[in-house]
């Protein structure tokens, strides 16, 4: 079905209603999900580059035995910052960026359900990152690993501010993550276009929905563990101090009962990206849509039952461990279902190897390698050998790079034309893919064998007699080639902004609603609120389907103000008109207040903390002050 053509006066009217205010005010006051989504993507990529620089420094130190380029103090700070940055400030936020940008477009809505909360989620993400990186010029970067095992993190063993930056920074970030997750859940159940029933959601939406629920249940464990750590360090409690009745293992249980669900939080939407772009580039619908959607949800749920496989060596009873080993193996099944769906889609369709498809194909191979090495960690006795060796480093990088970064790259090549309106270079795209794919293989595959040869994690140097020397050189060379691939990507983005040809609304002939909008989409997304009649609204009439037909050109325009439909949770029947909020600076000011509180906490300057708290109260009052414009003019439908 062709894209609707909007009558010019309607388009201008809607633009006036939805457009972000110009100037600096607009920069800090915008609530447009597309602007927020873009900022998420750019900011998360900046953190990817920062984490990459840290990785490059580590790899220089480890390239050969007995190197002394970096002192152990600095090395420990760098490997910790690398992990914390990549896992918390890149891997999940980059997916939030895609979700923020794409959800309303995929779901046929004009914005997220809670646009101001969306702005708050971004500003807290940015400012918590700024807070964390304040530790760099101070030379007090967190240095106890991203997992930060107590009691090494206690004041007695970590007297600097390093771990205060960690505990406070993560708590700050968890505000962003939790607010974002609740917003996705609200959006999903409230603002889908009429007819966008649950069985028509793109798999990417299923992925983000599942992870949003996982965040709501997992995040409190991390926040609690960090809060207890802060109390131990700065107030004098003893939650993790064995000598005074505390328990070091309490940290591990809290941290991993958050940490393992987090793994699925940073991969399920990425798997969704692949599930959604494969149909476009294999020219047929996804095989086994319902299986893949259910596999996504199942993984999210099972993900809460496997955390103990991070703790097999802590001396837990064998029976208890066996349960978690079984759960950790069972969770392979939904992943296998997804892989088979992708393979079947390739085999029963006709793959067209544009750049996104190259990354998707590479992704499938890396996904399987990262998956089978994960099964090895579930086999308890073998885990006693491989845990805390480079085998696990290999495994987690196949998960975080193979399953997250490769999917993100595929996603960028697929959707950036939608976001910027311009195509990226296909030839640079091929260079980008092959540099990253080969660099990754050369750099990260030998980490498996280094692990099997016993190289422990988190060592700043190693002796020549250990048999790890030249494989480490490979790893370093491969990692640098991979980094070159990332540089080509950045160059390609800039190239496309300057030189790229106009994309048009649907350059890949994709089947889903986001391709029905112009590229880039106007501030109001859809001039006409679409009515969805199938899973592939833009392929209707070209597939042997008998589903009802979507309506994209005709329908309600809702041009009385910032209005969009509120729909029922399951079948998406319209039941009210929602008046969406105007631009507002309160989310920005609220985040700034929290930033001030965090600086007060880390420095121990009480008046700073109190000033931040007062500002926080004022901004919350301002935010919730009654506004007449929030009531829809037309009332109920």
């Amino acid at each position, binding site marked *: 079905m062709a894209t609707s053509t909007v009558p010019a006066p309607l388009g201008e009217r809607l633009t006036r209603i939805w457009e972000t205010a110009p100037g600096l005010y607009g920069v800090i006051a915008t609530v447009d999900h597309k602007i927020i989504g873009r900022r998420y993507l750019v900011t998360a990529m900046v953190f990817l580059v920062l984490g990459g620089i840290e990785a490059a420094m580590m790899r220089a130190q480890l390239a050969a035995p007995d190197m002394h380029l970096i002192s*152990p103090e600095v090395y*420990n700070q760098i490997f910790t910052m690398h992990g914390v940055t990549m896992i918390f400030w890149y891997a999940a936020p980059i997916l939030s960026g895609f979700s923020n940008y794409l959800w309303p477009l995929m779901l046929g809505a004009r914005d997220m359900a809670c646009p101001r909360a969306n702005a708050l989620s971004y500003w807290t993400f940015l400012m918590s990152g700024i807070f964390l990186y304040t530790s760099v010029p101070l030379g007090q970067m967190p240095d*106890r690993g991203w997992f930060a*095992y107590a*009691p*090494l993190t206690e004041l007695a*063993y970590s007297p600097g501010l390093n771990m205060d930056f960690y505990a406070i920074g993560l708590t700050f970030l968890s505000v962003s993550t939790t607010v974002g997750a609740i917003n996705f859940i609200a959006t999903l159940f409230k603002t889908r276009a009429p007819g966008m029933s649950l069985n028509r959601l793109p798999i990417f939406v299923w992925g983000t929905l599942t992870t949003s629920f996982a965040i709501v249940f997992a995040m409190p464990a991390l926040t609690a563990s960090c809060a207890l750590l802060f109390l131990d360090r700065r107030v004098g409690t003893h939650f993790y101090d*064995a*000598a005074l009745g505390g328990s*070091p*293992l309490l940290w591990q249980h809290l941290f991993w009962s958050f940490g393992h669900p987090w793994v699925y939080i940073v991969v399920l939407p990425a798997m969704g990206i692949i599930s959604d772009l494969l149909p476009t580039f*294999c020219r*047929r619908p996804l*095989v*086994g849509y319902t299986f893949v959607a259910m596999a996504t949800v199942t993984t999210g749920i099972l993900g809460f039952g496997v955390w103990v496989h991070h703790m097999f*060596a*802590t*001396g837990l009873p064998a029976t208890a*461990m066996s349960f978690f*080993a*079984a759960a950790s*193996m069972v969770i392979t099944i939904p992943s*296998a*279902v*997804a*892989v*088979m*769906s992708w*393979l*079947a889609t*390739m*085999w*029963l369709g006709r*793959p067209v190897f544009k750049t996104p498809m190259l990354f998707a194909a590479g992704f*499938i*191979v890396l996904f*399987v390698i990262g998956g*089978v090495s994960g099964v090895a960690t*579930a*086999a308890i*006795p*073998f885990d006693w*050998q*491989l*845990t*805390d060796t480079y085998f696990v480093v290999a495994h987690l990088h196949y998960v975080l790079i193979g399953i997250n970064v490769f999917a993100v790259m595929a996603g960028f090549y697929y959707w950036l034309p939608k976001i910027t309106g311009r195509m990226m270079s296909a030839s640079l795209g091929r260079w980008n893919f092959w540099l990253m794919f080969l660099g990754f293989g050369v750099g990260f595959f*030998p980490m498996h*064998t280094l692990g*099997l*040869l016993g190289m*422990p*994690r*988190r060592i700043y*140097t190693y002796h020549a007699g*250990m*048999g790890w020397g030249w494989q480490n050189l490979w790893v370093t060379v491969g990692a640098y080639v991979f980094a070159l691939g990332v540089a080509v990507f950045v160059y390609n983005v800039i190239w496309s902004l300057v030189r790229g040809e106009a994309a048009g609304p649907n350059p890949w*002939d994709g089947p889903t609603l986001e391709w029905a909008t112009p590229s880039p989409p106007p501030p109001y997304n859809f001039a006409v609120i679409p009515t969805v009649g199938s*899973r592939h609204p833009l392929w209707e009439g*070209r597939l*042997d389907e008998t589903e009802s037909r979507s309506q994209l050109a005709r329908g309600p325009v809702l041009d009385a103000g910032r209005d969009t439909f509120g729909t029922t949770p399951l079948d998406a029947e319209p039941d009210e008109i929602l008046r969406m909020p105007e631009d507002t600076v309160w989310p920005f000011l609220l985040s700034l207040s929290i930033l001030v509180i965090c600086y007060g906490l880390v420095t121990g300057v009480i008046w700073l903390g109190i000033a931040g708290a007062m500002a926080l109260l004022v901004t919350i009052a301002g935010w919730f002050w009654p506004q007449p414009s929030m009531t829809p003019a037309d009332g109920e439908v």
Partner: protein
Amino acid sequence: MTMAQGRSTRQLRRLVLASVTGGFCTACADAPLNYMYGHGPAASSIARLGWWLVIVSAVVVAIVTILVVAAALRRPAAREPMALEGIGAHGGLSWIYIGGLLLPALILILSFALTLGSLHATTRPPRDPVATVQIIGHRWWWEVRYVDRDPTKTIVTANEIHVPVGQPVRLELTSADVIHSFWVPQLAGKTDVIPGLTNVAWLQADRAGVFRGACTEYCGLQHANMNPIVIAEPLMAFQTWVAAQRTDAATPTDPDAAAGQLVFQKSTCATCHAIRGLETLGRVGPDLTHLASRLTLAAGTLENTRGNLAGWIANTQALKPGNDMPVMTLAPNDLQALLAYLETLK
């Protein structure tokens, strides 16, 4: 299994590892922490489980890679480049039933059964342990105590654990500060060393030799240099070693060494280090009663030679930055005397 069969199995395994790893095979033989070959019942059982997992993983990855590459090379004819396939949304579910559910379930059930089998074989030693060794993790070295009912017969040493060949030894592990993890991979899997808890483990060496280990829980600045050694020796040799360790340090007869003993007692050495036989109270650093009988210094950081020992005493912070031992400023004569004395602590 005969020797020849054993060798050919090993060769086969190496071949598989080589094909899996793209030719990194030569490194295997020279890596003392390589855990794909065990030299004790626990490590051997785990290595068998490991090989199963590695080989099955390699096969799965190979099949999927072939399917992806073949799908890419297969070029079905199309009317136009981006035309849709004229097939419905349904179909292809047999891929999911067979490849996504049935085959993974079979492989996983088998893997889980093998895991439980190996778990059974590794949690308990084949027979009662002949000795109990307490291992206490410190930042960044291992205190090793052989406990005896008679307290005067208790042995205290550091970083090196002697065991008799072919006999299980019980380990009781705890920490004096932060969490460490004790690991000698060619004998057994790792066990975390946690303050406030005592974890019990065991290991057994099936042949004589020196088996290297590592601390494998990140424990701060010198986590990289906290490497224990297990020395497996025939029962007679082990008993001789035990008897020697039980003795106090001999009073030196050589005048140089006697002067060195005085240096030890009068300098700050004695504040932290104990030498049984001298009236020193130091318990902060490793017990030095039989220092000269050890293979390494500073928990595997340096080989135990006179030169390295001198360097260690004079410049400890350069060799292992951040460790608790202060740099000793001794007159050259005093240092030489001290070295002469320490060398008598066989």
